[in-house]
């Protein structure tokens, strides 16, 4: 770097030139705009539909603001079914996912090949969208809450194993090493040295999947898998928007209640 003589006679290094990077931003913006334009053309964006028909949407929206509370008794069974699907699926998947997570973690499974196989399979389980599981399981098992519960189970299994095995990867390996050094088997060392450290994270992730499940289980019925979704499908085919409004309101209430409870519990678990 060339040094120039400053006013005070001392050597002041010349300022490095500001790199010109603005063109990159413009380039990225241009690319994003082009992709957006192309995708917009592909899905057939048209504003005239919006302008012509917004009144339909607006009138439906107004109906939505006036829930039909007399419909409430009819929704109770579906509401219970939704919550039951979510709770049972969360429970079963939490039991099944724990041993699988131990097999999928670097810390607790010393056999790398085996561990990577478990991870690869779990990645595949996770890549299938929830409603797709439901659509296929409805065809295999038949309509009803059972297929919905099983769809949630597979969906949860993928998520839980991923999150819990990541938590296991992050634990302090000291206790486990100590247990192994005393001559304990891997199973015993993991049980005594790793499990207690990962338990709070495990509990918090299980709660998180319960939250996800409630969200998902409200719509599973749209493909025939029981719960509120089935009811949504029924009322929307008959355009009962006042009833639909009540169902949405119920979904909102369950989710908000569950979120509040679960965030409170999780904060206590972490602290």
């Amino acid at each position, binding site marked *: 770097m060339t040094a120039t003589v400053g006013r005070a006679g001392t050597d002041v290094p010349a300022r490095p030139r500001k790199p010109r990077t603005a063109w990159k931003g413009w380039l990225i913006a241009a690319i994003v705009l082009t992709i957006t334009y192309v995708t917009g053309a592909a899905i057939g964006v048209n504003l005239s539909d919006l302008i012509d028909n917004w009144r339909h949407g607006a009138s*439906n929206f107004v109906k939505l603001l006036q829930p039909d509370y007399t419909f409430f008794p009819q929704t109770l069974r579906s509401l219970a079914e939704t919550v039951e699907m979510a709770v049972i699926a969360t429970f079963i998947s939490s039991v099944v996912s724990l041993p699988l997570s131990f097999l999928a973690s670097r810390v607790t499974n010393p056999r790398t090949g085996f561990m990577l196989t478990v991870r690869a399979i779990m990645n595949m389980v996770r890549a299938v969208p929830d409603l797709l599981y439901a659509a296929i399981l409805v065809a295999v098992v038949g309509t009803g809450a059972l297929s919905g519960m099983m769809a949630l189970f597979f969906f949860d299994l993928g998520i839980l194993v991923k999150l819990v095995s990541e938590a296991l990867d992050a634990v302090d390996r000291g206790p486990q090493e100590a247990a192994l050094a005393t001559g304990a088997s891997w199973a015993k060392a993991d049980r005594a040295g790793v499990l207690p450290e990962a338990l709070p994270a495990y509990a918090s992730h299980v709660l998180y999947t319960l939250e996800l499940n409630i969200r998902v289980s409200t719509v599973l019925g749209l*493909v025939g898998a029981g719960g509120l979704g089935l009811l949504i499908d029924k009322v929307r085919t008959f355009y009962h928007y006042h009833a639909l409004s009540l169902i949405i309101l119920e979904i909102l209430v369950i989710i908000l209640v569950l979120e509040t409870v679960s965030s409170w519990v999780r904060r206590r678990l972490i602290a």
Partner: protein
Amino acid sequence: MLSVALTAIVVIVCFVDTDMRWSQLVRFPGRMVHYLGLMFGPPDLSTLGHALSATLLSVDMAWFGTVLGILVSWPLSFLATRGVAPLPVRMAVRGIFAVLRAVPEVVIAILILSVTGLTSYTGALAIAVGSMGTLGKWGYESMEAVARGPIEAVRSAGGNLRQIVRWGIWPQAQPEVLAFWLYRFEISVRASVVLGLIGAGGIGKVLSDNVQFRIWDAVGTLVIVVIVVTVIIDLASGMLRRRLITGRWSAPRLPRLRSRSAA
């Protein structure tokens, strides 16, 4: 101990009250093997071209919806940030975000349906509305988490609110916010498949049609395409996100699933 007992009671009540036909489970493994055999032994690869073009439509839907969601939620997220907007405005905007997050995309699609019909355009609009809730929340959370120093520096140099946001808050929050946009795109891709299942077009539509007509070897191909495409998009987007956050390219690890709770 109390919490364990409470949890046990809730679980037991659910098991007792539900009217699931558990007897079906006995036959399930056999049937599943049977159906998996129909789907993947071997999958009907002649539908691959059709499957790929349908997937492209799904991705189009996800992209357009996400961009639209970003365009609306980005300015709104400033209005929800502490220190930028006054309390009443903040609370109102946050309330809107919370409601949008709580309503499932599929339900939003059903509402928009009466305006634009059962098209992929409707799917994109539903994704746009749905993504506003999550993007808005992540947006204001990131902007509230920035270091105070630069904000005070701008203020003490005489900067007004606009300048504080432009030079004190946004440059710090920018990488994280951009990474969330990408992450939301990944979620939108999955959502677009799901929206297709109820008729909004794309791969989901093709899938549900084939399931309904029980053309299982075609379903096999479609499931493989869905898995491969979502994994590729997740990997690519995950690499880009790490580039944004850490400033350099790194080999693809499998992306973290849960950056923020309300996905």
